[in-house]
């Protein structure tokens, strides 16, 4: 055994510890990078927080302060994933950075996982800030259980929107990225009850709302606080799961096609 250490390097099976280290470092530096990139961190965390400061405090002690807490949390996770994953990968791909990483032995899965975990971490930060603001400025009362459930729904919500971000990264040219993502994300968040309950929306909009993944995520988050529309929550979980598979499937097809062409 001891002689192996001195012998000429022979290709050896890579250990679990080696992979664990890659995943840890990749995630750590991805999160640090996102945090330091102010254009990302300030807008993704800043917008829901700023809007909550505006609309939450002006609706202190009434239903809206309580309603906007989960709905803006959903907005946070959706924007973190679409901008973090969608823009992040599209840019790194266009700039050749992804090529350099792919030429290294780093598994692709580590790259995707690191980005997903980092975006989910951002979403959790947003939830924590919104809950803190809700309790203080908004005068909301909530139990620890409700807060944890909200965090859980938001974490689960990071998966479908990571998948959507991946598809966006593959489809949208990087310089058009921010515009296209805003064009997808802003109308979707408005039509899904992130800003006001779906019942308040124009009737024609309410018709298309159930087709939006953001609507299903919002319903799950609002359900915790008793603001969901009547009906079973199972259908919303199913819708999100189906949406995730659809996005991943489409991304997979496009990716393998571009690989075959390369």
């Amino acid at each position, binding site marked *: 055994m001891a002689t192996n250490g001195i012998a000429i*390097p022979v*290709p*050896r099976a*890579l250990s679990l510890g*080696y992979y664990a*280290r*890659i995943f*840890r*470092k*990749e995630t750590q*530096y991805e999160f*640090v*990078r996102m945090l*330091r*990139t102010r254009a990302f961190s300030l807008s993704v965390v800043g917008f829901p927080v700023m809007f909550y400061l505006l609309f939450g405090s002006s609706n202190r002690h009434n239903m809206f302060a309580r309603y906007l807490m989960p709905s803006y949390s959903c907005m946070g996770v959706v924007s973190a994933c679409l901008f973090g994953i969608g823009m992040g990968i599209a*840019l*790194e791909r*266009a*700039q*050749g*950075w992804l*090529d*350099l990483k*792919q*030429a*290294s*032995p*780093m*598994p692709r899965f580590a790259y995707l996982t690191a980005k997903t975990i980092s975006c989910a971490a951002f979403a959790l930060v947003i939830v924590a800030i919104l809950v803190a603001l809700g309790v203080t400025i908004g005068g909301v009362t909530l139990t620890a259980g409700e807060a944890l459930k909200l965090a859980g729904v938001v974490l689960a919500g990071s998966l479908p929107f990571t998948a959507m971000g991946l598809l966006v990264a593959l489809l949208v040219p990087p310089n058009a990225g921010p515009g296209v993502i805003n064009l997808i994300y802003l109308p979707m968040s408005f039509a899904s009850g992130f800003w006001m309950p779906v019942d308040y929306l124009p009737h024609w909009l309410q018709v298309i709302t159930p087709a939006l993944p953001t609507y299903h995520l919002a319903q799950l988050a609002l359900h915790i606080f008793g603001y969901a529309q009547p009906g079973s929550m199972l259908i919303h979980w199913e819708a999100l799961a189906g949406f995730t598979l659809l996005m991943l499937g489409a991304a997979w097809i496009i990716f393998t096609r571009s690989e075959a062409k*390369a």
Partner: protein
Amino acid sequence: MSATAVVTEAGTRAWPVPLSQSRTVAKLHSVTKRYGQTTALDDFSLELRAGEVVALLGPNGAGKTTAVRLLLGLISAKQGSVRVLGRDPRDADARTRIGAMLQVSRVPEMLRVREHIDLFRSYYPDPLPVAEVIRIARLEGIAEQMFGKLSGGQKQRVLFGLALCGNPDLIFLDEPTVGMDIESRRALWDQIRSLSAAGKTVLLTTHYLEEADMLANRIVVINKGRLLCEGTPAEIKHRVSGRRIRCITQLDAEFLATLPSVVDVQQDREAVVILAEQPEKVVREMLLRDETLHGLEVSAAALEDAFLALTSEPGQAKA
């Protein structure tokens, strides 16, 4: 050992390459690679043997980067085969012993140099220590800086450092000195020489003949995806024995190109620069046809001219 040498000698009698007994570490075998209508590589073969520094020399769009990307397994070719360290380059096992410096337009800017190194080291099972990478790539003093704050030359040095993180046996450097000033370029040349001295195999692409001449044991000249010629730097330079004629004339370039032994015609501001095997014949003809001709100079072809001649008229240059 001796048995192998005998076999090699017998098998390659008509193959006077001194390094032929060395092990092949990477190989492109008659690869054709197309992107839609354009052919990036056309029946191109390249072999890298252990311990040599090979320069892939050619103008922009010659197919140099495509060759490197194939060897790194970033793209694949429908025709021909690619083997690196005896494996498919897409194999992660092969990648643990390879380092690459690619043309990256932007690197994540909000990570410090040391953090980038730390991250890339984690990708390899037997990485070099951080201090060693910093020393070899001359990153002392900028290790704690954000990547985005660095100058162009410093950024190239970091990318060079990242290529070395895994202590690779085989290193690909795609246009490593692009955008560098003379001083940093010379420093990087020294570093590449020291890699070679440490027994690493290096493939570098460049469009500077001078750079290839300074660094490589072997130069492979490529244009429009095809191999033009290969040999030692001295052999490549001797390919063109022509001379360079510079003058101001009213004769047009198309006509000049038809004169005997003319290899290349280039416009240089108000003057025309002609590369020809027999300059006397060309000059006589020009003087006869253009009385206004002035500012005549005839000189030995510079390295860059030799290279231009090789790439612009492959038929003549090969002959």
